[in-house]
């Protein structure tokens, strides 16, 4: 193996050199909409992609570009486009690959927002989705159609933390001439680098662990550069002349960078779901300590999972590091450093016990986010999904007893104490006394 800068070093340095004018060591926030052209020829050359550089911050910005390079480096890709949110990254990826008539094969166990996009919104634009149980590897193959243009899933499914067989699903997708895109939000590149398992595109909600402190909404789309668009022949956006850039053929011009160049040149230019430079700065602060924070998140999650699995008020714990999880063995291969710090457990006593539990917690914050430095909790049956009855919840794979935790960076024994007290409070007096 040749020597390259390693993950921890790249987390701190990739994409940035000290500011040449003033020597600023931190990444400066280039709070500007636009950039002065040297002359008219320079301007024309930038607009026609004859030269590289910044034109307008909807399309690129120096602060955002540092984050984009850093995430490319950490994922092992060729390039990245940072976006206003994770949802913007997902939509950008889809819109770069297909238009009306396109079809997606997706894991059924994905973030609710992504599910909404696939189920309710994309059909209005003529793009349909078939959902597949992520553990049913052959199901991905059966769901493929001639018009399929993307296979999609998450490294760790939501909410059951299902772990897809990434190499096998990638092989199925490639056999059909389409790429596999993975939402790597829950794992981060510290725990899993999907490109090393055959995945072609990765997206993130950078709001979560990458930012790590719950202060900014952000997304990222990363291109491995591995997929052969030309050989596939199914992606005219990448292999045929584009009138929007004087007949530019992205695969011909940029080779392995075709997808990410089109995503920026068209997607940010036309859809405009751009990341702000201030946001990029916030996310960069998080990325600089990703390699320190994630192991602690995992260690704390292990301690909490161990505690919960032995608590009498807990029916079950769903965490791939526990032997009881159906994907325990696969986790050892795809996520050898750990399975993150977001997981679910079932509380005895259902919806009412869940409500009492949530209201008794003090350190865990009750809110709709994950991947914060602080520990978070949500009980879908009494909050986000409270309008659904027991049958509807079951159909959605969410039992009345399900509580989801995002374990933060506090002292793990303090977290255990908080959970222990709240679990006691959630139960009828007899059990609590036990």
């Amino acid at each position, binding site marked *: 193996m040749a*020597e390259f800068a390693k993950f921890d070093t790249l987390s701190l340095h990739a994409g940035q050199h000290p500011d040449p004018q003033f020597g600023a060591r931190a990444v400066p926030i280039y709070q500007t909409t636009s950039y002065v052209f040297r002359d008219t020829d320079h301007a024309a050359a930038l607009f026609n992609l004859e030269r590289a550089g910044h034109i307008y911050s909807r399309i690129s910005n120096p602060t955002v570009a540092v984050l984009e390079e850093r995430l490319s480096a950490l994922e092992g890709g060729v390039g990245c486009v940072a976006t206003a949110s994770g949802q913007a990254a997902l939509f950008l990826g889809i819109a770069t690959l297909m238009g009306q008539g396109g079809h997606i094969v997706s894991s059924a166990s994905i973030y609710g927002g992504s599910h909404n996009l696939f189920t309710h919104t994309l059909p209005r634009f003529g793009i349909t989705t078939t959902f597949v149980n992520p553990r049913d590897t052959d199901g991905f193959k059966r769901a493929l159609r001639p018009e399929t243009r993307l296979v999609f899933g998450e490294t760790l499914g939501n909410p059951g933390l299902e772990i897809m067989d990434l190499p096998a699903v990638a092989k199925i997708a490639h056999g059909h001439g389409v790429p596999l895109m993975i939402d790597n939000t829950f794992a981060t590149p510290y725990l899993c680098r999907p490109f090393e398992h055959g995945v072609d595109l990765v997206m993130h909600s950078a709001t979560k662990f990458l930012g790590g402190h719950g202060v900014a909404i952000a997304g990222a789309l990363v291109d491995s550069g591995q997929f052969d668009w030309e050989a596939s022949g199914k992606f005219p956006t990448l292999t045929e002349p584009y009138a929007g850039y004087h007949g530019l053929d992205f695969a011909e*011009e940029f080779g392995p960078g075709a997808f990410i160049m089109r995503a920026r040149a068209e997607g940010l230019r036309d859809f405009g779901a751009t990341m702000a430079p201030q946001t990029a700065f916030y996310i960069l602060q998080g990325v600089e300590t990703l390699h320190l924070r994630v192991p602690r998140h995992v260690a704390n999650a292990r301690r909490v999972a161990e505690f919960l699995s032995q608590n009498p008020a807990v029916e079950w714990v769903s965490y791939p590091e526990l032997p009881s999880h159906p994907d325990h063995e696969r986790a050892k291969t795809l996520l050898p450093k750990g399975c993150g710090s977001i997981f679910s457990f079932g509380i005895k006593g259902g919806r009412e016990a869940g409500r009492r539990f949530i209201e008794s917690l003090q350190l865990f914050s009750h809110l709709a986010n994950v991947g914060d430095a602080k520990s978070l909790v949500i009980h879908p049956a009494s909050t986000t999904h409270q309008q659904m009855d027991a049958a509807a919840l079951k159909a959605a794979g969410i039992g009345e007893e399900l509580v989801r935790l995002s374990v933060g960076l506090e002292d793990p024994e303090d977290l255990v104490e908080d959970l222990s007290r709240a679990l006691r409070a959630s139960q009828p007096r007899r059990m609590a006394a036990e």
Partner: protein
Amino acid sequence: MELSVHGKKVYAATGGKAFDPALPAVVFLHGAGCDHTVWALQTRWFAWHGRSVLAVDLPGHGRSEGPALDEIGALADWVVALLDAARVQSAALVGHSMGALVSLETAARRPNRVRALALCGCAAEMPVSEKLLNPALAGEHLAYELITAWGLGRRAQIGGAEAPGTWMAGGTLRLLEHGKKGVVGIDLRACDRYKGAAAAVAKVKVPTVLVLGDNDRMSPPKAAAPLAAIPGAKTILIEKAGHMLMTEQPGRTLDALRTLL
């Protein structure tokens, strides 16, 4: 565009404009294991500023049919056949690394077909370590890693790409991976065996520019000194650039080429 050279399909990018043999032609020749895409941020400018561009995939590379040619001299003869196929009487040749040796040798063999030379990331001799040559010939991934690690300058290893959001190390590695197995080894062996630079330099009379990276660890600038003996040759040293200077410093590389072309 597609051309036929010696009965084989050859692909050449034209910078986004249709090739017009009536315009001054500029032919771009890539280095070992690469293809035409290494010139993306130079070719478009020339194509949109009154030149006809042919950024070729050498035989066995990119979209051109194989086999790869295993001698610099054979590649030089192939370039002449390419000019014939494109109906170009005389072209400026822009070569990188192995492509620079091919450009030099072409100008020496057929001076009437070459009107200017731009030699990028070049050296009069390019000995290749067995540590690289053996895995390259075997098609081992290690060769791609070594070329990426040595090819990019130390600055570019950390990034700071001129093309926003692109990771240069990833792009270089992936480009090499996309090549046909073992081709990079054939290229490197051709470079290693080429000893004709001194003789070629003595024959070349056309305007020449050497474009070198000051942090080039594969072809250090001092190794290009014999090439500067071409009468009137200019040397432009690009600061903080390694061997892959078209990727590392695309704007400055373009500006350097514009001084000649």
